[in-house]
């Protein structure tokens, strides 16, 4: 159990590129923190800075209140799981897990107990004598996890550990990781670009963009109250719809598309140009014509459990996604009558993208 504290941690590469622009963060004992963002946002760099694989240009990173900026990776008492497993190909799986313990001077008997215990938890008992290349992708990832848990480190670091696995295995391993982390109660930092992994695993989510933490909060907070247009568009699938809008003079409505007025749940400065965000799942369809919005269907995708319809909202908003439960049949061009609850409308500043 340990805390990880980042104090204005920054990373600048020798060529002048600033990968991380000063991040402040405190990860509590046993907390599962997920760093999520598009490629190149600096999430892996940040993880590698905590691991000690990348230097820290400015600021401080501490583990359990001890600054580790200049501490060697092996002395930080962390364990990392890599995307491509990074197992030692010339050692069998037992030795792969035992390697870190051997180098830390554990006795043979202790090593054996710890490795066998980890193998039992991860159901690898039958594969210990084999080399990594004789295992499937999922088993290799388990060995990599085993290598991390045998040491009982203060912090687990995961660098997109599930990206190389197929879809079904990814779901299984995701549950396994969550389960394991909760059981062992070890502080964890997990990097992913997959928002499903991010939403399901995280106690706390950090959405990164361009080397900056755009939002830090619980997954539900981030989903319900995205701090910026970037976060709103990144979290949630299918992505949030964005429309150009203008706040009416009474400060209580916003006009989008061909003059459709939507009610707001809080007052906004009248006449202000804004970006209006509506999640596909928050558009409600009405058969009785009580909705304020009329939109034509352009295309329909049926996924079985849900149906995605792409709608034409009129001016500047010709591709709005609607997500409905169950199966629905629509003709092309069919007019749908829709509404949005006032508390599900998100407004963002046109210039800064910040939530209003």
């Amino acid at each position, binding site marked *: 159990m340990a805390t990880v504290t980042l104090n204005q941690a920054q990373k600048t590469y020798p060529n002048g590129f600033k990968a991380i622009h000063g991040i402040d963060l405190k990860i509590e004992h046993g907390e599962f923190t997920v760093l999520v963002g598009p490629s190149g946002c600096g999430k892996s760099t940040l993880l590698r800075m905590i691991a000690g694989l990348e230097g820290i240009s400015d600021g401080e990173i501490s583990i359990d209140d001890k600054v580790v900026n200049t501490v060697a990776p092996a002395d930080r008492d962390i364990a990392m799981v890599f995307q491509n497993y*990074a197992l030692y190909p*010339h050692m069998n799986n037992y030795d792969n897990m035992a*390697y870190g313990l051997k*180098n830390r001077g554990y006795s043979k008997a202790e090593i054996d107990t710890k490795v066998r215990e980890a193998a039992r938890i991860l159901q690898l008992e039958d594969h210990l004598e084999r080399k990594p290349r004789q295992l499937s992708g999922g088993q290799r990832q388990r060995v990599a996890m085993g290598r991390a848990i045998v040491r009982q480190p203060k912090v687990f670091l995961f660098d997109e550990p599930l990206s190389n696995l197929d879809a079904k295995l990814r779901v299984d391993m995701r549950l396994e990781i969550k389960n394991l982390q909760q059981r062992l109660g070890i502080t964890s930092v997990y990097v992913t670009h997959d928002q499903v992994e991010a939403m399901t695993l995280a106690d706390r989510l950090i959405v990164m963009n361009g080397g900056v933490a755009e939002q830090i909060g619980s997954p539900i907070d981030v989903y319900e109250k995205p701090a910026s247009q970037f976060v709103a568009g990144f979290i949630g699938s299918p992505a949030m719809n964005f429309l150009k809008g203008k706040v009416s003079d009474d400060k209580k409505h916003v006009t989008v598309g061909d003059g459709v007025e939507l009610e707001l749940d809080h007052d906004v400065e009248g006449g202000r140009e804004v970006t209006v965000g509506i999640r596909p799942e928050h558009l409600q369809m009405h058969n009785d014509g009580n909705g304020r919005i009329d939109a034509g269907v352009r295309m329909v995708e049926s996924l079985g459990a849900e149906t995605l319809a792409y709608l034409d909202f009129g001016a500047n908003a010709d591709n709005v996604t609607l997500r409905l439960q169950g199966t629905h049949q629509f003709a092309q061009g069919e007019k749908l009558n829709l509404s949005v609850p006032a508390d599900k409308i998100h407004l963002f500043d046109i210039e800064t993208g910040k939530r209003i």
Partner: protein
Amino acid sequence: MKRVQFEHSAVPYLFIAPQILIICIFFLWPAAQALYQSFLLEDAFGMSSQFVWFRNFEDVLSSSSWTRSAIFTVVFSVMVSVLSIAISLFLAVRADEVIRGAKSYKTLLMWGYAIAPPVAGLLGIMMFNPLMGDLYKAFNSFGFEFNHIENANDAAFIVILIAVWKQVSVNFIFFLSGLQGIPKSVQEAATLDCKSPERRFWTITFPLLAPTTFFLLVINLTYAFFETFGIIDVSTKGAPGGSTATLVYKVYVDGFLGADMGGSAAQSVLLMIMVSVLTVFQFRFIERKVHY
């Protein structure tokens, strides 16, 4: 198992014909010639010859000069291979860690590859020339009584030095590419698992380089056996008293300088047998153990 027979056409044979032709003309034919000649006893001018069965082989194997040359060849080959592999591995590991000016280091270390063995031999022997050689003077000014013209060990030292120097650049290239073939994440995982860089090298990097090392061992032994001819011919010419003549060089000295064609042919046949055995041994027994 049933074997499937496809319709044969002449085209594939045409494609391999040039290679087969080259092997026949430049290897099989001379080898057969040498084998035939090794059973003959010729006079120095090639005017008459007599079929003597294995007498040439008996003479060769019982001669002390051949035994000495064989021992020198083994010592020389092992020293050259081990030293050049060790030095180039060290250089490659260091060059791989360099960040600033990495390209220049690497290019400079590879340059030696472009030098022909006789040129390397000439450079080497000039450095040890008793009249103007800087290394000769340096060694003697340190108090070594260095004299490769009379001392067999000193002469062997020079030949080994030149041969190793020439081979380091070749090995360096292979080790560098071998090092770059080790996944970065594996090395990073090792830095988390093991603090000591030396220990990490011997437990992770070196085992992962084993296939490269084995390949280079084969290449270097072959090099030391055969390709050092130019170096020896230009530097010591086997002197003093044949103490730095490898088996290959001795074949040349006895056959072309000593005009003992039969004895020289017998030596080359023995060499052929040794090389065949060595090759079979290397690939049968060692290669299996170095792969992961």
